[in-house]
């Protein structure tokens, strides 16, 4: 397939006084699966519409294969989009819906037919061709919407929360299919979602956004392991990372973290911010339950059992930490336990940014 790379340079967009996007830079390689992740209202859908050419940016450049497409209409950009609401044409059959884009581009009829069949085969919706959208289930509509994009063989796929209207079980299976599909057709995809599981499982590259700003662009593993700031740290991971306010202190040439109600020896870590207010973060699975030289004492407040594992909410005096425990472990609320935190697993943030 004839796919393209996408480059965004300093994209800025205002709606009235609201800054929808400020200075967004992004590069997506040919064949890469890029996920725009963020809470609702962060500007990710606006960005997608700008790439499609449905909205014009106030400043900045959109480039496909290194060439600016700012002056091109959506039609000329040759991108395909799958909408959250699917936006199928209700007055056309599935076959007509699928073939519409090709028909509008003057592709000869036999070719349209061939490509429609090919994509319906790929998605397993061959027997729906003569139906109208209103006769389809949610999952089937979603497939048709995907098919409408696939048939076109565009240079770039734009997907706007395509799974958010499916129920949870279907969503998981379609997510897997989407991943396989991407591997099969090696397409360049920009995928918008607010669901971190979708982002982590699908993306070759994840862009975390909030309030119109890009907070981090990295591989999913890196985003999880090294969040660039406290927002990303909190947003990625479930249950979310424990973050504690405190002060960085120097004692005998070693760094210590003094939080409310507990202190931590940071071991070999030598943060270069001197003695200052910081936040330290630790993921629930990085806290070890059990005795050690530096263990902290805490009281189990509450236990959430999610089946595959348990999460303990442990009170350390003035702060509360979420700690992962294996599913076999038995704890009682009120029980006093010892927690050990490996300094190498800590995330330290100064003024919100990772150090």
């Amino acid at each position, binding site marked *: 397939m004839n796919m393209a790379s996408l480059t965004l340079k300093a994209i800025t967009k205002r709606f009235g006084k609201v800054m929808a996007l400020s200075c967004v830079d992004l590069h997506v390689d040919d064949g890469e699966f890029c996920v725009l992740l963020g809470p609702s209202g962060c500007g990710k859908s606006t960005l997608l519409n700008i790439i499609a050419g449905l909205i014009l940016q106030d400043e900045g450049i959109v480039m496909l294969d290194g060439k600016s497409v700012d002056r091109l209409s*959506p039609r000329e950009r040759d*991108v395909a989009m799958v*909408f959250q*609401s699917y936006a199928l044409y209700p*007055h056309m059959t599935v076959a007509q819906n699928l073939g519409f884009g090709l028909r509008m581009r003057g592709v000869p009829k036999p070719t349209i037919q061939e490509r429609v069949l090919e994509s319906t085969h790929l998605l397993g919706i061959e027997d729906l061709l003569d139906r109208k959208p209103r006769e389809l289930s949610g999952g089937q509509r979603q497939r048709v919407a995907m098919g409408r994009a696939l048939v076109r063989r565009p240079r770039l796929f734009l997907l706007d929360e395509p799974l958010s209207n499916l129920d949870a079980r279907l969503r998981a299976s379609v997510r897997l299919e989407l991943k396989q599909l991407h591997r099969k057709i090696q397409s360049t995809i920009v995928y918008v979602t607010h669901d971190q599981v979708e982002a982590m499982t699908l993306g070759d590259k994840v862009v975390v956004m909030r309030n119109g700003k890009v907070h981090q662009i990295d591989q999913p593993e890196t985003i999880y392991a090294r969040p660039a700031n406290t927002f990303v740290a909190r947003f990625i991971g479930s249950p979310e990372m424990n973050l504690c306010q405190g002060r960085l202190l120097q004692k005998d040439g070693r760094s210590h973290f003094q939080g409310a109600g507990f202190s931590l020896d940071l071991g070999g870590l030598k943060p270069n911010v001197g003695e200052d207010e910081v936040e330290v973060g630790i993921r629930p699975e990085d806290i070890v339950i059990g005795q050690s030289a530096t263990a902290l004492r805490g009281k189990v407040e509450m236990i959430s059992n999610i089946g595959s594992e348990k999460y303990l909410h442990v009170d350390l005096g003035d702060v509360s930490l979420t700690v992962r425990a294996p599913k076999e472990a038995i704890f009682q609320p009120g029980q006093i336990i010892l927690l050990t935190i490996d300094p190498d697993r800590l995330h330290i943030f100064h003024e919100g940014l990772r150090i």
Partner: protein
Amino acid sequence: MERTIIRILRIMGLIIFIAIVSFPFYWMIVSSFKSLSEILLKPANLGLDIRKIDFHAYYEVLFEHGFLRYISNSVYVSIVTVVLSVTLATVGGYAVTRLRFRGQKIMSYSILLIYMFPAIVLVIPLYVMFSRVGLRDSINLLILVYLAQTLPVALYMLRSYFQTLPPEMEQAGLIDGCSRLGVIWRIVIPLSAPALASVALYTFMIAWNEFLFAFMFLDTPEKFTLSRGVVQLAGSVHLSKQLVMAASVMVTIPILILFLFFERRLVQGLTAGAMKG
């Protein structure tokens, strides 16, 4: 108990209402099938003797009083008004709903402003104006006036309908390779069929039934529309009731048929199934 009473009252109310509304219709139709002598002999007779049905009044009205001409005039005026009004309202309504341009808000809200002026206030200045320019006594002028009269409501109706159409569908159309006009033609219009039908019906009714402007602006009998023709007939020297009734039937029936025919389409929604659901 109480429910049954309410039910009975409701049915009775409906019957009375229907009787009040349909009685003039009934009388009109019955009288149009009678001969002049019968009407004069028994003016209060409401019944109709099936064996004595007389189509003579229709024949006379159509061929001797020029109604064939009036009908074709009315058909011409109405159809041209409908076509122009629906076309302009579609394009205009789409523009104020979807496109962003300077003055779009004001435009959108001032559409109905013309309805603040009753027709009688407008007709005299228009009469004077058109007389000066020498445009009076022309059927096409009538179309222009009807267009001005129907367009605001047509625009308003279509705008309200377009606002209910999901914009994503049009965006999908744009991405699939349509131009703006292509989107209107291939997506908006097919989906707006019910709204377009009601606008067409509304416009047709106004144009077909309109009397005041036709009365003021048309002088030559060859250019009369139906409603104008009926008044001409009613005011003529030999007042034959059955002729006026037959003429009135000819004015009313087409609208009635159109309404019954279109009514079914008006309620059908077409957007079902487009979006998630």
